[in-house]
């Protein structure tokens, strides 16, 4: 038994496939690719498979992760080639690495995520771009976070680790995961709150670039935890 981490992209039309459907897609993908996945015990055994937190419907990503336990090893090159042959284009598996023993699972490991945001019209983009400096100069930027039950005000400023204008779009690196989860929309609304102009949510395209875990003081891509199987 060994634990393997896959990094995959989710793009194009497949942004309309929900998280549960992505899970089902991978279960079937492993069977088609003849990857020997381990199953749980009990009356209804299921594949030992876990994912990073759900990607919102409609969002593209270059950095989604699935951890899977294998019954027998397979080298990375062979696995990637078999997976490619059994895949659809718009869910592209980029890496297949063995995880060190006792490493945290993908879901629990996530501490930060990177996003790029592009704006359908240049004017809105400009407004956001102009607000970056002011946002970064503050110690406190409060936003109202809505949960299913209530609303609460939180200071997102310490949870935004990086914020810059890059290639005609906004790049942000923010806290993510089970504690202090920040959505890119929070940052966009904070930025537009600074200027008083609120862009239409549908006029932006958000893409997750990668997800990171914390090792000491550093944020490390989830992709850099394991190693190729040779």
């Amino acid at each position: 038994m060994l634990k393997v981490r896959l990094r995959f992209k989710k793009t194009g039309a497949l942004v309309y496939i929900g998280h549960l459907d992505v899970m089902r897609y991978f279960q079937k993908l492993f069977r088609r690719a003849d990857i020997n996945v381990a199953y749980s015990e009990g009356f209804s055994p299921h594949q030992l498979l876990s994912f990073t937190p759900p990607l919102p419907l409609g969002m593209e990503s270059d950095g989604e992760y699935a951890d899977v336990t294998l019954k027998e090893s397979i080298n990375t090159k062979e696995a990637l080639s078999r997976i490619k042959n059994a895949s659809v284009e718009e869910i592209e598996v980029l890496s297949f690495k063995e995880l060190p023993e006792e490493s945290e699972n993908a879901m629990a490991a996530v501490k930060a995520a990177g996003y790029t945001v592009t704006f359908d019209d240049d004017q809105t983009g400009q407004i956001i771009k102009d607000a970056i400096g002011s946002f970064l100069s503050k110690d406190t930027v409060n936003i109202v976070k809505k949960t299913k039950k209530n609303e609460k005000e939180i200071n997102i400023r310490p949870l935004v680790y990086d914020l810059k204008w890059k290639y005609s779009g906004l790049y942000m690196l923010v806290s993510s995961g089970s504690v202090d989860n920040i959505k890119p929309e929070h940052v966009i609304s904070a930025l537009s709150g600074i200027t008083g102009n609120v862009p239409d949510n549908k006029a932006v395209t958000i893409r997750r670039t990668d997800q990171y875990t914390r090792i000491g003081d550093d944020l490390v891509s989830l992709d850099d935890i394991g190693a190729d199987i040779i």
Partner: protein
Amino acid sequence: MSKLALSKEILLSVDKPARYIGHEVNAVIKDPEDKIRFAMCFPDLYEIGMSHLGIQILYDMLNSYEDVWCERVYSVWTDLHTIMKERNIPLFALESQDEIRSFDFLGITLQYEMCYTNILQILDLSHIPFYAKDRTEDDPIVICGGPCTYNPEPFADFFDIVYIGEGETRYRQLLDLYKECKNCGRSRSEFIKEAGKLPGIYAPSLYECSYNADGTLKSFNAIYDDVPAKIVKEVVVDMSDSCYPVKPVVPYIKATQDRVVLEIQRGCIRGCRFCQAGSVYKPIRHRNVEKLEEIARKMIANTGHEEISLASLSSSDYPDLERICTFLIDEFSDKHINISLPSLRVDAFSLDVMSKVQDIKKSVVTFAPEAGSQRMRNVINKGLSEEDILNGCKQAFLGGWTRVKLYFMLGLPTETEEDMEGIAILSNEIAKLYYDTIPKEERKTKVSIVSSTSFFVPKPFTPFQWASMNTMDEFRYKAHVVNEAMRRQLNYKSIRYNWHSADESVLEGVFARGDRRLSEVLIKAYEKGCMFDAWTEQFYFKPWVEAFEECGIDMKFYYNRERSYDELLPWDFIDTGVTKEFLKREYENAKQAKVTPNCREKCNGCGAARFNGGVCVESKTAV
């Protein structure tokens, strides 16, 4: 980014956008250049349509032709329907996301009567006129197939051509004819007329009908001399030789039947007198078991599905049942692939197999006695005795099962109160049998009997095609009789009783034996918002009643009226092989509660032997 017909804003505002995007594993993408474009439609939600084997077979077959690109299209749910109507967005096919109206063919499969208004939704959203007569050279040829085409008259006006019988046999010829007509610059109507001369193809516009003063059909004739007066159904003679989709499309969202389906045989040897499928798919033909094993392996490898299931009307009659079951268990059970075996008669063998493939605690033993008394079961020729049922249950209880499901019908011809009460008595007998069979100290749980009744709907090409169907009040009364009888049973606390809605059944009854005059009602009902009538939460009876009233059509004329043997029936121009003489004989046998043996026991001369296939050939060589 790949092309999608709907904008991001729309896709993110509707329920399950994955229904509308295509891009699935094994979906076929071709270069549209010089292709005949075929849009294959199942007029219900994606999850339902994707579960249908017939479409998978035809999709695979049509795409195996180099000059054809077959794509899929399904009904759109009411949320998207509203948006598409408001913004005038045309309906599109999943693969290319191109407009349906630009296709050469729109093919619609009709599997149940309650989907008829969905045909209109598809045409409406595609911007294709409802009536075939109003279409122009710019519209696709609209064709339909499936079991409902055994009485195509209620929707005949909506289709350019109707394919009668099994789809595997005649499409190549039809498409060749289409190409030829196109190359010669011939018109749509010329193609339709030529198509109407092909075997199995019915072009409604080439026939006209007239009616008697009492509303019954007076005449039904071909307008031209060179168009056949009778259409013989198409039959796949050799099932082992016919095409089978080993690389079916794998949906992202969970389809109703999210699994590999192995069609082991087509047709049925049992002559249940209420069953249309048993009649129109005669003779029974089976697929070679080695071929099935090969198909099963390929399909699992190509789809990655975690379940495999057998499909047939009665799996227990498959000659190599034991071998195929053993194969499935040996090949797949240690690969974590679930095996599902529906339509198995409950006996020692099937219980043994089921105990190997299912968790007994969770699984249910199912019987379809269809009627509560032995007399009634003889009337419908259901070859299942009380002894069979009780023996099966006893073995199941001893094997650890505690849940039994029973299916019955109410409103069968000649039914008496005794027959209705028989449903409750039989349910009670089974519960009692559990307590008699399993000693108190070994009982881990209470026995659970779930009895359901549906209302009998007479269907064309069955011996009951002449019979009267009960009115809604009669149905409600009968359900009440059964319910009261249930309460009187000693073990009623172990029994649950469910019954179907009577108004849906009545509507099904109207359309099952309807004629061309009903197309107007369908359009009226659709305009009033009737769609997805097969979905209980979407079904509203009131607009239907209004639609019938506005058209001046009496529902009872169609569902409640007993027909005489000499009445010209709207579907009489179709020849299913089974003769009218045989059906009359069987109706008479029914009235006397006389049983007819099954096709393997004895040939009853139904007429299907003319197809020279399956059991008809088998029994002759066996003698």
